[in-house]
């Protein structure tokens, strides 16, 4: 029988990026003395350096707060943090599914933004009770009345209960805890029913194996039980269960219905305990899993190669380690004539890609070269078969292609109305199809566009930010596939195709892009002993060409006074430089040339 767990509240905090989610979470931890002041590092929930630097939460984390409310009762508040970026929408949705309510933070100086809305809709999809909170009231530009009116008008949420706080100074933050207790419903569950728990996060730990974060719906789980993952079928003996303190895990004897906690069971990889899966017991399984599980599929792919071929094994080990903790990261070995041995890696989106690259370089000290990111194209061949292509190198001969489909995204851009013109220019330039535009409040608009995914994965967000001085925000989701007129651009140096630089592009954009690539290569490849023709071709047809003139002289160091050392050092330097060069037939291309092509901005 389902009973109410009166003393528990399970909630998330949702907000647009930079509206103060992590800071508020910190204050709540402090206030409930979950973290002693002296242990308080800024933004405890964001464990990774990159998270702290970018001010975003990449992985969800959870923590249990103990709070004595003004009604005199003790409550257990489980805060489930959510990632704050569209690339991680699925993880957000699983975190929300573990809650009964959410605190919606709105910045008193900014108002409703793209992710405020996107996250609100997600929360409403999960029938969550929302507690609005107006943050940053300490700032001079704060206008809480206007922001409340905004929220009521756009979201239709009653803001009369909304605490007006400053997470930074701590002002009024206690009010948030009171509202959580008051407005967010307690969980219900049946302790006697078969065990059923939702995995909303899983993290690999060197000592314990995978730590599975769950919200228990029904039943009880104890150490020694045999647990079973309903989607993957994998079974494990439970080693430990417990609750999450802010700085450490606290083991307990059991996990019961309504509770949020963790399970360890010597699980080797997060792939065996994917977010969204349902945990049950092997000997007394639940009838059916919780709804909503899906295996997330990478949307963006690129080749990642070690700059020094000798680092191939280290790169593989690093990717394996990252994958232990990131079920959405995929990789498989790939060989490029240009770049040697490396990996084709799949990511949820561009941010995910950047984070992985940065972690590989920073945490594993690897020097990397990566290829242009690509989406997955569906190529319909003349013989009726359909192939998925995520690597331009594998693009079939145009002669045997019937037609090609590319992924299309449904995109919403939220911006002050003064930037509408420039945003539309950008979207039109990116082959966008305008759907509609809503004024969401006096001077803010929601511009709805259909955009090809390959136009937004690379630099769209940067371009948007620079055109709107950072004021616009952006949200998208994959809509499906549409037929499109695409071609593959090949780069030829001295007549040889450089596979790593091949590029799939809409035919209308092929010519200007080809010219730009040719120019960039000419500027970035140093003169060599022989003249090098640079050609950009579609199929066999060259559509742009440049020539890198032959080098006539290199540094003629004197061998004065028998100083051979100097001469030798110069040659050593030349050798070092050579190492950073990629050899293509007779042509040497420095890494910088690759970077220049990859960073080809649509605007310059």
């Amino acid at each position, binding site marked *: 029988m389902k009973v109410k767990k009166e003393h528990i509240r399970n909630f998330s905090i949702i907000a647009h990026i930079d509206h103060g989610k992590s800071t508020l979470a910190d204050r709540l931890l402090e206030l409930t003395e979950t973290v002693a002041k002296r242990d308080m590092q800024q933004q405890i929930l964001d464990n990774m350096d990159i998270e702290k630097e970018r001010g975003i939460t990449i992985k969800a984390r959870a923590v249990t707060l103990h709070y004595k409310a003004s009604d005199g009762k003790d409550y257990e508040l489980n805060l489930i943090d959510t990632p704050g970026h569209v690339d991680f929408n699925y993880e957000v949705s699983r975190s929300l599914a573990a809650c009964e309510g959410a605190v919606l933070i709105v910045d008193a100086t900014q108002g409703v933004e793209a992710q405020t809305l996107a996250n609100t809709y997600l929360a409403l999809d999960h029938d969550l009770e929302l507690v609005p909170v107006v943050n940053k009231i300490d700032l001079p530009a704060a206008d809480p009345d206007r922001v409340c009116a905004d929220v009521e008008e756009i979201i239709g949420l009653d803001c009369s209960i909304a605490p007006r706080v400053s997470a930074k100074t701590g002002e009024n933050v206690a009010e948030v805890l009171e509202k959580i207790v008051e407005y967010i419903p307690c969980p219900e569950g049946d302790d006697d029913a078969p065990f059923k728990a939702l995995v909303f996060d899983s993290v690999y730990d060197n000592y314990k194996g995978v730590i599975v974060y769950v919200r228990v719906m029904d039943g009880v789980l104890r150490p020694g039980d045999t647990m079973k993952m309903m989607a993957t079928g994998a079974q494990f003996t439970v080693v430990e269960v417990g609750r999450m303190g802010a700085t450490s895990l606290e083991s307990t004897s059991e996990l019961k219905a309504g509770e949020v906690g963790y399970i360890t069971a010597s699980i080797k990889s997060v792939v065996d305990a994917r977010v969204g899966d349902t945990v049950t017991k092997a000997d007394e399984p639940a009838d059916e899993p919780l709804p909503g599980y899906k295996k997330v599929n990478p949307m963006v792919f690129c080749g990642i190669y070690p700059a020094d071929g000798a680092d191939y094994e280290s790169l593989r080990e690093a990717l394996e380690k990252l994958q232990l903790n990131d079920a959405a990261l995929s990789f498989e070995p790939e060989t490029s004539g240009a770049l040697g041995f490396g990996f084709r890696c799949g990511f949820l989106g561009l941010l995910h890609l950047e984070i992985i690259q940065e972690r590989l370089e920073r945490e594993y000290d690897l020097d990397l070269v990566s290829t242009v990111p690509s989406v997955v194209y569906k190529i319909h061949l003349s013989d009726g078969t359909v192939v998925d292509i995520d690597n331009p190198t594998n693009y079939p001969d145009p002669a045997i292609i019937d037609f090609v489909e590319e992924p299309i995204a449904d995109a919403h851009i939220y911006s002050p109305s003064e930037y509408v013109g420039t945003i539309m220019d950008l979207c039109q330039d990116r082959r966008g199809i305008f759907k509609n535009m809503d004024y969401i409040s006096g001077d803010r608009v929601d511009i709805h566009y259909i955009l090809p995914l390959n136009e937004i994965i690379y630099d769209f967000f940067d371009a948007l930010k620079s055109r709107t001085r950072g004021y616009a925000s952006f949200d998208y989701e994959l809509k499906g596939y549409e037929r499109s007129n695409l071609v593959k651009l090949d780069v030829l140096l001295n007549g040889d195709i450089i596979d790593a630089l091949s590029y799939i592009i809409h035919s209308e954009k092929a010519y200007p892009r080809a010219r730009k690539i040719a120019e960039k290569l000419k500027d970035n490849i140093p003169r*060599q*002993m*022989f003249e090098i023709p640079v050609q950009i071709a579609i199929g066999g047809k060259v559509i742009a060409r440049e020539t890198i003139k032959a*080098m*006539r*002289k*290199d*540094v*003629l*160091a*004197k*061998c*004065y*006074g*028998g*100083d*051979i*050392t100097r*001469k*030798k050092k*110069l*040659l050593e330097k*030349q*050798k070092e430089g*050579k190492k950073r060069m990629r050899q293509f037939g007779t042509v040497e291309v420095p890494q910088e040339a690759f970077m220049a092509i990859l960073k080809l901005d649509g605007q310059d």
Partner: protein
Amino acid sequence: MDRTDKTGLYFHIPFCRGKCPYCDFYSLNAKSCPDEYVFSLLDEMKTFKRMSELVGKDSKIAVDTIYFGGGTPSLLSPTQLDIIMDSVRESFNVCEEPEITVECNPSSPNLEEFLLSASKSGVNRISLGMQSSSDKERRKLGRQGNAKKVEDAVYYARMAGIENISLDVMVGVPESSLSSLRETLDFCLSLSVPHISAYMLKIEEGTFYYKNADKLTLPSEDEVCDMYLFMSHYLKENGFLHYEISNFCKEGFHSRHNMKYWEGAPYLGFGPAAHSFYNNKRFYFPRDIDAFIRGEKAIYDGEGGDTEEEILLHLRTYKGISLENKSSSFINKAKLFEKNGFAEITGNNFVLTSKGFLVSNTIISELLSVY
């Protein structure tokens, strides 16, 4: 030009009356060379002699070339030069018909007397730091005096009985052009000197030129290449041999001392920043005159004389290298260079052309990468 295993001696005289704006050699501002420094050179020679006696060499080291470089060796007083030469004969076995070179600044004071007494001390070759015959270019290069000074210096040398004269020419200097280089070369030819050293200007870090690079009007890279190729062609036409990347001579007038550097023969350098190659070991004194005067030891710089070094050094000369016993990829690269006019292959002999000299760094590192 047969290779000799006799040793060459180099003395660095690191003093100048002013620093030239392009120069990054080790030198200090001074009107003359202090005696203290001369004594430390003598001490170092004695130390070397003692050391070689200790390792059981009973006879003195045979020496057939001596070279005074700088800095400005013509700042030595006649007495100082004489003392050094006496000490050389004391510590080393100076062979018959040695080549003894002194670098001179054409505008050093009392050059006439200096050359007369130098000649008496045994000096039989001088190298004059002319750089250019154009007064405009010379001023830009910080060289005192006009081209007439160079004429005078050549005259004084000949009066002193020194016929083996080399002129330094610098290619690609500010405000220069193909035609001004031709004038400088014509000037050299008119003086009938048997040797010309021609270095390309390289803007070295730490020099005045480096700091003021944006204010220099330099010929373009293409122009400099054209100048170099023209020079090689023009001097060859006038009876010179382009015997090393930066050196031209009339038959029999190559710098015997410098050839030691390129042919792997032993040499000993005395003075701060002077380099040595002896017993297959390379060593040098640091760029610190005080350390040298204190008698601090030379710094060991590793083994030398291996095949890699041989390729690197020999390819600087007109003798080139032998393709015998080289790998097939080495030979293939060599042939590719020949095909493109960077080198000539005669039988088994691989020699760089003037066009090849210009890109010798790349050619050498390419060849070494497949060696």
